[in-house]
């Protein structure tokens, strides 16, 4: 790992200023993606801006119709929150299935969605539940946030402050773990929201996406039998030593069916 300047600001404004003042600055959240990346010298920022001292970025607020999670909230705290579980059980369960306990004790929601790993879990929750990503500059709708593999709508130096999830009528997330990495080989969030049924798929393609054929099939009711005639195209899905595009397409439908039954039942 190359050396860098370390900053630990106490406010969002100071964090943004520290990043803007650096030659090539990077925010540091839980470090569970960034530190391994630095160790392998896949990145070598001049400055790291540690967000753990910014209290504005911490915590969970549940109001009647939405759950807002601060960017620096750890996966373990979302998983253990009775308030989150009472409002959106699928979200607490998803957080509790990320990686392993030690990763969950440090990793954060802001870091996970800023990174937008094609196999990460939170992007499926953000997109499937139609959440809004709040930054120090604006609010970004989930449908506009994830733009490609490891790419998001965030601009240089833009800082995620929180994510707001509208409480759905019903939702469930089903993950088929990669047995070695614990990431999602395929993960599917099925949600019945005010705006209709949404099906968000992670792990299968280069970036989280909505499976419109499955959304249409489930519009009449959340049940795996509604998917009988539906199909998911393997075109453009990931191919690696773990699974072919065809197998991933198959898993998307199977996981969507399980999620639909669990959410609908």
């Amino acid at each position, binding site marked *: 790992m*190359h050396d860098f300047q370390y900053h*630990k600001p106490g406010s969002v404004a100071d964090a943004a200023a520290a990043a803007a003042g650096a030659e090539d600055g990077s925010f540091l959240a839980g*470090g569970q993606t960034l530190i*391994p990346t630095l160790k392998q010298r896949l990145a070598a920022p001049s400055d790291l801006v540690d967000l753990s001292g910014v209290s504005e970025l911490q915590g969970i607020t549940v109001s009647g119709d939405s759950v807002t999670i601060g960017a620096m909230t750890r996966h*373990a705290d979302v998983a253990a929150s009775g308030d989150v579980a009472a409002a959106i059980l699928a979200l607490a369960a998803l957080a509790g299935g990320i990686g*392993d*306990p*030690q990763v969950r004790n*440090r990793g954060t929601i802001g870091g996970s969605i800023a990174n937008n790993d094609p196999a990460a879990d939170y992007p499926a929750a953000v997109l499937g539940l139609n959440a809004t990503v709040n930054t120090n500059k604006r609010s970004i709708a989930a449908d506009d946030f994830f733009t490609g593999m490891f790419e998001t709508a965030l601009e240089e130096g833009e800082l995620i402050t929180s994510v707001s999830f509208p409480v759905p009528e019903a939702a469930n997330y089903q993950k088929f773990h990669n047995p070695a990495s614990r990431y999602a080989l395929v993960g599917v969030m099925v949600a019945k929201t005010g705006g209709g049924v949404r099906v968000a798929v992670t792990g299968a393609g280069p970036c989280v996406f909505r499976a419109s054929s499955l959304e249409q099939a489930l519009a009449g009711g959340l049940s795996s039998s509604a998917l009988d005639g539906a199909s998911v195209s393997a075109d453009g899905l990931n191919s690696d030593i773990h699974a072919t595009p065809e197998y991933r397409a198959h898993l998307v439908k199977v996981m969507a069916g399980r999620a639909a039954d669990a959410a609908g039942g």
Partner: protein
Amino acid sequence: MPTVSMSVNGKQYSGEVEARTLLSQFIRDQLGLTGTHIGCDTSQCGACVVHVDGRSVKSCTTLALQADGADVTTIEGLAKDGQLHPMQEAFRENHGLQCGFCTPGMVMSAVDLVNNNPNPSEETIRENLDGNICRCTGYHNIVKAVKAGAQGMGG
């Protein structure tokens, strides 16, 4: 160079570190506490697990500066007055180790698990050891040891 200070196994330490120093390097190289092992470069094996403010973390995936001001416990901090911690004793008693390389991390993860969940089922134990890899035992006796350790800890 930045300075860092933290309590490790109840003793206060401070020192200058390069910003890039990992908590695992600080513990092993600067404090000489080599019970914390380094088994991989990819944050996957869990041999390096320590407790930071009571929570298990991978010290190879934490900067020393991120633990500034924290309370850190390593495997050396578990035994008290020459008496093994009940979880260590349970690993010994149940043959929960062969070469012993993964053991410090296994024990630290197991103690954190039992602190949060005093009487874990076999399934819960297996799930919670997701982040700890053992290439010798086949895990069976580790799971037995964690169950016994939980009883020993009062669960």
